[in-house]
Structure formats: C-alpha cells, structure tokens
C-alpha cells in the first residue's frame, strides 16, 4: 500500500466487531446461525458482518480470513471447511489481534480460541442411529448421504455412527456412504442413485440439512416413499411438509440460530476479555444463560432436539 489517506479508516475497528464466516453462503442452516449471531450482536451492541464463499471449500475461505485480519475485526466466527487448511490463516489473524471462535465444524484446537459445539459428536451419531434403527426394526441395509467428502464434522459423525451401529445393532448394515457436496441437485441425484444401486435399502441417514431435504424431496415422489426410512439432521421449516406427508417420521437438530447466538456471545466474551478460552471460564450468553468453557476450549450448546409430527409445529427456523 501507498502512504496516504487513512483518516480513521485504517485504525481500530471497534472492539466487538464480529465477522461470521460460514462454510458457504446461500445455505439455510448458516442463514439461521447468522440470524442468531446478528441478534446477539444487537443485544450487546457490537457490529456484525457475514462474509463467505459460494463454494464450500477451504481455499475459498482463506481470503476472507485474511481480509478479517487486515480489517482488524474484533472476532472471527468460523465454520471450517477443513480442520488444518485454515490453520495458518487463522493463526495469522490471531497474531493480528483477532479472536477466533469456531462453530459447527471445528479446526484443530491450536488454531482457535474456543469452539462452540452444537452437541457432542457421540450424541449426534447415536441419536441418528437410534432413530433409524427404531424405524426399520433394527435390521436391514442403510446408507449415509453426507455433505462434501472432506467435511470434518460429517466424517467424524459417520465414523462414530458406523462404530455405534456395529456395536449396538449387529443386524444393521451400512452399505454405502455417498456425498452430495451440500449441493441440492447433487444430493437429489445421489439419493436416486442410492435407491437404484441398493434395491433392499431400508433406510437413509443424512447428517446434513441440505442432504436430508433433497433426499426427502426425492423420496416423497418416489415408489419407495414410506418403504425407505429417512432421518438425519434437518431444519423443521425445510422438513415440515415431508413429516406431514409421511416421508419422514423423525429427525434431529439443534437450533442453529441458538448456535450462532451462542457463538457470537462467546466471541464477545473473548473480545471483552471475560474469557480466554481456558477450561472453567464462564460467561453470560443473553437469553441462553450462563455457559462454561470445557476441555480443549469447547463450549457445548446442549442436546439436539428430535422433531416429529407431534412437536414440529412448535418450531420456526
């Protein structure tokens, strides 16, 4: 850069300026979490910005981290497309004084201050397997429709699901894991391919909101409707009609808006110096009450909610 023209443009951008960087833009799950983040920022009087790439890849996320570092924002709230690839960029941002909070999908602990975890991976994995096992009578073939082949949280959950299913439900066989890239059309076509290649398929688990909605849409117009069970992680608004028409009986999710809300408050607490990310630190998160930082700088939102025909009317996100 040249020499002149700064005025107050270059200097400190306020302390509680918070930038949300989801995996990608145009994803309803992250729209909800950003809504929560923005609401939190309004409450504690900070500024809020959402930036992000169109494609959910780490190389597309890095420039946004760099930009946040250049702007000297107070805190960056990231859902990472890769656990290590963002590491260096995040480290540089922290060197520039930016607090780093990850949510939804973590990076390696050394690269961030805290991780706001939606639910424990074990909890997520087990609840989904339990739901599907119940629907298919604890035996038969099931398949998994994931997001990107490299999505960390997905891969962790899938691994835990496989272990748990093998231990608890020996008659259930996971026959295939396929990847819809969190793209609507791809997930849709991959669902069709799953049903096609496995005529005896009993159930599909899709631990991603894009995937489960696309799969439900395919199933709802297919000959397999009502015969192949579907569950996973989905937002109530997206899944409502499929629960109503019987394509889906039950699915799970935490409230992504609350997740964003909590992440923003955690970021605020870091910026204000209320917490440092040490185990045992506590902070107030608005309506949600008090939270404590756990081991490895993790903050746990709570247990996921299971939605079904009885309770889905109570939720709107």
């Amino acid at each position, binding site marked *: 850069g040249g020499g002149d023209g*700064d005025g107050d443009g270059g200097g400190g951008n306020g302390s509680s300026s918070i930038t949300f960087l989801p995996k990608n833009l145009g994803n309803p799950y992250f729209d909800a979490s950003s809504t929560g983040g923005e609401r939190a920022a309004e409450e504690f009087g900070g500024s809020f*910005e959402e930036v992000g790439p169109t494609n959910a*890849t780490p190389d597309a996320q890095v420039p946004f981290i760099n930009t946040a570092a250049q702007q000297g924002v107070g805190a960056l709230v990231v859902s990472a497309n890769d*656990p290590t*690839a963002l590491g260096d960029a995040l480290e540089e941002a922290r060197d520039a004084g930016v607090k780093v909070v990850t949510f939804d999908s973590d990076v390696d602990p050394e690269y961030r201050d805290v991780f706001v975890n939606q639910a424990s991976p074990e909890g997520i994995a087990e609840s989904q397997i339990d739901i599907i096992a119940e629907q298919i009578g604890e035996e038969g073939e099931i398949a998994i429709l994931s997001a990107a082949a*490299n999505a960390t949280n997905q891969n962790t959950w899938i691994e835990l699901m496989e272990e748990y299913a093998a231990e608890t439900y020996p008659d259930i066989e996971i026959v295939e894991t396929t990847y819809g890239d969190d793209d609507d059309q791809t997930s849709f076509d991959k669902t069709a391919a799953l049903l096609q290649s496995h005529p005896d398929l009993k159930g599909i688990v899709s631990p991603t909101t894009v995937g489960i909605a696309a799969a439900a849409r395919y199933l709802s117009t297919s000959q397999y409707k009502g015969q192949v069970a579907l569950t996973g992680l989905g937002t109530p608004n997206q899944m409502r009609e499929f629960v109503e028409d019987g394509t889906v009986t039950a699915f799970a999710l935490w409230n992504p808006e609350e997740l964003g809300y909590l992440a923003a408050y955690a970021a605020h607490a870091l910026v204000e110096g209320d917490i440092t990310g040490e185990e045992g630190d506590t902070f107030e998160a608005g309506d949600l009450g008090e939270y404590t930082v756990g081991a490895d700088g993790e903050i746990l939102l709570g247990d996921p909610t299971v939605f079904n025909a009885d309770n889905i009317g109570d939720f709107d996100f």
Partner: protein
Amino acid sequence: MSALKPTPATAGSGGPSGSGGDARSERIYAAYARPAWQRWLFTRETAVIALLVGVLVWANVEVPNFDGPLTLYYLFLDLMPILLIALPMTLIIITGEIDLSVASTVVLTSAMTGVLCIDLGWSFGAAALAAIALGAVAGAFNGFLVGYVGLPSLAVTIGTLALYRGIAVGLLGTEAKTGFPDEWTDRVKERIGESSYPQVLIVFGVLAVLFVLLLHFSSFGRGVYEIGLNDEAARFSGVDVARTKLLLFVLAGAVSGLAGVYYTLRYDLARGDSASGLELQVIAAVLLGGVSIFGGRGALHGVVAGVLLIGVITSAMRLQGETENVTTIVIGLLLVASVVTPSLLAWASGRLPSRGRGKSGPGRSDPA
C-alpha cells in the same frame, strides 16, 4: 557458391533516422514509423497498466485498511497460482489455442504430491519434482492431441479438464492429505526481508523473466506469434508448428504442476475440490491483459497487469465488505468491455468519416 550479397549498403545499418549521406542510391529504412513514446503509449498494455495504477490509487485513498501492511502480502499469495499459470497460458492463447485443463492439472499434481509425500513417505522435494513432471506429462498429452493429431484445443482440454480432476478425485476419495513438512509450508509464506512481499514472488519473478525472454526476445517467441497470426505461413517459413504447440502445452502443464505444489503448501492440503474455476480466472486475466483470443497479439507485461488488476479489485472490494457477486460482475464487465471497446472504437471511427454509407461494408474480418 551462391554469392548473394545484400548489396552495397551493408554498412548503412537500420538506424532509426537515416543519415541520408550514404553514397549510393540505396535506400535506408527507418526502423519505426512512429516515435518511441507513441509506440509505448497507445497500446492495450499501457491502458491496462494505467487502469491498474488508477485502481490502486483509488483503493489506497478510499478503501479502509487497503494501505495496511498485509494487503499486498495476501494479494500476492492469493494471486500466485493465477500469476504463474497466466505465463504459459499467454503463449498458448497467442498461438490461437486455449488450455482449459490447467486448474485440473493443479489439483491432479496437488493430489499426487499428497499421495507421494504423505502416503508413500517420499521426501517433499522429491514428491514436488514428481508432481511437476506429472504436470508436464499431462500437458504433453494435451499438446500431442492438439499439435500432432490436430484436434481443436477447446474440445481436447474440456475433455482433460474432466479427466485430470477426475483422476485426482478418484485418487483421493474422501481423504484430504494434510500434514506436509512445516519447513516447506512455512517457506511458502515467508516474506522478503521486512517487506510485505512474499518470497514466492521471487520464483514468479524468475519465471516471468524467462517467459518474457522466451516470448519477446527469442526466435521461438517470434514463431509463437506467427503461428497465431497465420500458422500456414509459419509452417512455410520453417516454424515447426506442432512441436511449438506441444512445447507450450508441456510448459503449461509443468507450471500448473508448480502451482499445484504451491497450492498444496499454501493450504497444507491436497483435496479434490481445490482450485475450482481457476482456469477461467486465468483466461479472463490473460484476455483482460490484452491478448487476443484469435491469437497473434498480446504481451506479457499486459497480462501481469491484467492479473494484478483482477487481484486488486477483488481485494479492495472484499475489504469494502462487498460480496463476491459484485466482484464477479465487475470482472465480467471489465472483460466484456475490454474486448468490445476496440471494436466499438473501430466501428465508430470507420463510420464517422464515411458518413451516409449505410451499413458497414462487407469486407470485415471474420468473427469467431
């Protein structure tokens, strides 16, 4: 035997202004029709450079944080793959061909580096060399089909675009290779002294000088232009058209391989979905820099300015908080404007003097 001499006036060299007093009636030719400043000023390249300077000034004054120490550092780190690949791409487009497979080659070589270094335990240096060699082989495959089999490069490289990325995705599957040696990943990010320029810029600088010498100061480079302007005439003057094209595609492949290694180190990662859309970014930058898609015209300094222009605009707009879409629109408009403006100017200047003469005459050169 054939004592053909270029006649008496061997002495009278081709100096710019003939010092009229050379003995015989032999004619002395001026080297240039226009003075030097005009030759430099009225070019596409100068226009792009001027635009780049203008945007830089604007960004420094108007965009908060643009004058910060990190801006240029990140700018160059982000642009490095485009800068690198734009060099051979310029030569390929000047011959009238195109290579759409470069981004896929980047991913393929990155995957290869990952497999060799992480899975098979090769030293990183050896893996990187193998990856660059693989890039050259991938380029050679394109070049063979285009140069020797005579297939249209657009069709061939659409095919290898899918093929090379497909092989990378097939090799890696769900895996992302990571954990490359720190000494290497750190090296990519080091700065030159205390400046805000990353050291990789030196690698680019060396390559850029080599490509400038190759294109603008060598017999080979003259051949590259001739092929683009008229490949038949080039063949009639002894230019080996097929071999030249092969070589250029090999260079593009090898440089893409280098960019693949860079990609791997910069993100400490080899993944099948990296570098998506990079090929079109490179081509857009090259065209913006004044290279004609028909071949035969363009220069490397314009191309480098074109790449930087896109980089500076992207960086400035991101700092301003504009979303990617707006940047995308601006770059698209720039690209269209940069090719339409010359036609519009020609059309306007052709129409104004010969007023009244209705539609444009039929003698116009072919489109497409």
